[in-house]
């Protein structure tokens, strides 16, 4: 199961539906996203509650045909300009969700059920655009809004630690990572460090990703750079600012030079 980043990214077919770990600039699979760009993947759909560098980069290189998300931004550092431009120019479809409906769709997929009721968000414009439907509540005679299950082809998770089979440990917030692993057909783990099984077991209470659907495990120190992966490193704020200033040539250089 232990493999190289190059080999792992080769598993991703054009047109796949991917979910990425983390949130904004937090524990994102950044190295994996750069390799997706280098391998010129096309027509990907990326689903995430709140994307940043990962989604923006893929939009800059036309790897993505659709983004399903609640939020794509660099927070205080500025807008996700490559995402923005790609959407405005019609090269990428932004299928807007609220973070909540991304989660609800993943839950339905994780539970093996075709849809799940949600709290009433019916006045939001995207409810109609996404085609979310009402059903009769069979117990209380009211109407309830629902979202359909969305099953990712791959969950791409950057974790702090994993063993060689792909059992993986996350310190700190999970965001939707454990949920997307349950929902996905396949999992790829990039980890700050691969540790012996016995060592991982000593921290069992943080090991919530079992290896059974993990198709590849890759040790990538600083795999979330320029994002953070606590407790090992913080966001590289200067690198983010620099990234946001890059033009097309600069971006091409960025994905080649920032390794892995």
């Amino acid at each position, binding site marked *: 199961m232990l493999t190289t980043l190059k080999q792992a990214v080769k598993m991703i077919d054009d047109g796949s539906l991917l979910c990425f770990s983390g*949130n904004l600039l937090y524990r994102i699979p950044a190295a994996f996203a750069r390799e997706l760009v280098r391998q010129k993947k096309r027509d990907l759909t990326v689903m995430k509650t709140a994307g940043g560098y990962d989604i923006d980069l893929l939009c800059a290189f036309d790897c993505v045909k659709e983004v399903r998300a609640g*939020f794509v931004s660099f927070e205080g550092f500025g807008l996700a300009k490559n995402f923005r431009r790609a959407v405005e120019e019609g090269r990428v479809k932004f299928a807007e969700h609220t*973070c909540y409906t991304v989660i609800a769709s993943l839950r339905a997929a994780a539970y093996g059920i075709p849809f799940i009721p949600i709290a009433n*968000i019916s006045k939001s414009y995207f409810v109609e655009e996404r085609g979310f439907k009402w059903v009769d509540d069979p117990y209380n005679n009211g109407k309830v809004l629902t979202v359909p299950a969305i099953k990712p082809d791959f969950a791409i998770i950057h974790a702090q630690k994993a063993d060689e089979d792909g059992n993986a440990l996350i310190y700190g917030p999970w965001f939707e990572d454990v949920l997307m692993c349950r929902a996905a057909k396949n999992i790829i783990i990039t980890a700050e460090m691969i540790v012996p099984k016995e060592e991982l077991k000593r921290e069992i209470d943080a090991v919530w990703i079992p290896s059974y659907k993990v198709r590849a495990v890759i040790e990538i120190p600083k795999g979330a750079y320029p994002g953070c992966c606590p407790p090992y490193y913080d966001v590289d704020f200067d690198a983010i600012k620099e990234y946001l200033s890059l033009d097309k040539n600069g971006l091409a250089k960025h994905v080649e030079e920032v390794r892995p």
Partner: protein
Amino acid sequence: MNSLERANYMISSMAKALKDAENVFMGVASYLPFAAIVLAKKRYNPDLKWFTILGYNPMPKHLPLSTVHPWISKYCEAKIQLGEIFDMSARGEIDCVFLAGAQIDEKGNINNSHLIINGRRIQLPGGAGGALLHATAKRPILWQGKHDSRIFVKKVQRITAAGKPYKVVTPLCVFKFDERREKLVVESIHPWVSLEELQKNTGFEVNDAPKTEKPREEEIAIIDEIDPHGIRKIELE
């Protein structure tokens, strides 16, 4: 009145809105709410429970450059997933939530999705968790670091999130929601703002109102302590 001082008025107003809240949630890119919650806990509501996307009840030393900064999770008392916070709101367990709006209209609707200007789509970052939170939290508090008539409009072009805001805090005034008329009314106007100026910068009709109470010295001391480098200015500049 410089942007730091204007931020302090906003933070103080937001903190006061949390006086009798039990549970408050704050999302990403929320510098002013972050400071307001710390201020509220220190001064108005020591039992306030603070939910963030990184965990429960942080006690951070400083306002971070990112409200998903790792050090927030380090200071939390318990873990909780983002989805579970939405569930809390759906269950009616979230009192106050802070929501930002790129456009906010008279009815309290928020647009964070996109604008259509001369037929051209201007993409915004999206509404994050706002759609659910605005519709289900008991007292959503909206804020916006800028106040002009393109932001405060009669009717948003797209409704990203709908709900009844408890307050709307801006650098010019504080709105509250009038349940009877189902629209925003001005609750207080910041002292450096005239009614005329407020009207000029607002796309719907505004009413006169008392001056916003000045933040006390001790409030400002708390705000300065949590944000010694003035990161909070970001939102107003």
